[in-house]
């Protein structure tokens, strides 16, 4: 097994999960309905758990412990995609991002559940069961607001989809080691996951009466450490308490 290739993959997934968890947690107390407030907060808590489990695997490869890895790096040391860093915007934008992101995560973990690397396969089987609920939640609301709401809700969902689409494609920025991961049977690679993702998101978007933008250039860079101006302030806020005393026992 190529350890560097695996580490790169784990970092992309862990950093994405950590950052989107923070964004989702920003809905706590502000959700448009109590149930949605709870849903975004619960999903955030699940994602944090997933990130922690992935950082734990990285720790076993000799990286710092999960808290240090999560809280002591600067923006340029992150491998997350731009998609997860963007501010929440309105509920429409957050919901579309949640839907597009979780469809991708669902497929990533489903693929990893079949991985030749037993350790990630075991974790992936567990996580996939949880993501199912995230996806279920996202799909229900995308269809509800897209096809079962009114003219305004449909228009807002379509506009959110148009705005987020190029960033969503950026989730699949090709990794340097995709070919090796695929050859070793560890992970099928980003272009394959993107292919499956397009099929799966289309299923729901069709039901929601929403149309995939016809042309869009993917926004790449995050996987190589280039980020939007939104990431560093997010990290500063997330780690504000931790950095006061990193050795404190909670």
């Amino acid at each position: 097994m190529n350890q560097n290739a695996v580490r790169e993959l784990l970092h992309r997934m862990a950093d994405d999960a950590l950052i989107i968890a923070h964004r989702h947690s920003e809905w706590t107390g502000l959700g448009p309905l109590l149930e949605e407030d709870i849903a975004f907060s619960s999903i955030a808590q699940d994602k944090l758990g997933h990130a922690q489990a992935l950082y734990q695997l990285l720790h076993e490869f000799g990286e710092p412990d999960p808290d240090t890895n999560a809280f002591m790096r600067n923006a340029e040391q992150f491998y997350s995609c731009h998609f997860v860093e963007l501010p929440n915007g309105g509920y429409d934008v957050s919901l579309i991002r949640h839907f597009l992101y979780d469809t991708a995560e669902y497929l990533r973990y489903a693929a990893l559940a079949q991985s030749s690397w037993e350790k990630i396969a075991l974790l992936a089987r567990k996580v996939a069961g949880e993501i199912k609920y995230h996806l279920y939640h996202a799909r229900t609301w995308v269809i509800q607001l897209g096809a079962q709401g009114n003219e305004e809700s449909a228009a807002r969902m379509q506009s959110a989809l148009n705005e987020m689409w190029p960033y969503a494609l950026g989730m699949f920025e090709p990794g340097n080691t995709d070919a090796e991961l695929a050859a070793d049977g560890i992970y099928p690679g980003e272009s394959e996951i993107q292919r499956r993702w397009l099929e799966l998101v289309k299923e729901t978007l069709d039901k929601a009466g929403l149309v995939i933008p016809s042309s869009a250039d993917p926004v790449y860079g995050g996987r190589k450490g280039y980020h939007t101006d939104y990431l560093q302030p997010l990290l500063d806020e997330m780690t504000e308490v931790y950095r006061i005393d990193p050795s404190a026992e909670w």
Partner: protein
Amino acid sequence: MVISPERVLEALHTVKDPEIPTISVVDMGIITSVAVSPDGDVAVTMTPTFVGCPAIDVMKHDVESAVAALQPASYHVTVSFDVPWTTNRLTEAGKQALLKHGLAPPQEFTLELELDVLQQTPCPYCGSTNTELKSPFGPTLCRSLHYCHHCLQAFEGFKPI
């Protein structure tokens, strides 16, 4: 004296889930193995319900205290995902304990879990299946929110996973 694994399990029956105090960690199905070596070392393995379950540290601590109270030669408690937790691991007594707490027990499933089963979760108050899923997320990661159209009450369910 070497303690039997049965004795350890019995002791673990006294450790309750901090979020649902009517159910023990054993009936919850989160204890995946109890082994006692010939020289008296007690090894307990636990698996969290949800990967990000915030109660796992508390439960691990409580399990350690319960094992320590038996005064074994030595002991260690590990948390591992190697045996993944699913709601199918809940015991019959565990499901009754959930009902007692006013929570609809999760429905059994084989192979793939289809989330449509959540739509008709039996109401823990009147037993009717004329119910509706309001949200797959509730006050803790493992619960969902439902409404019973028969007895007109909102209720919580323990979601199948």
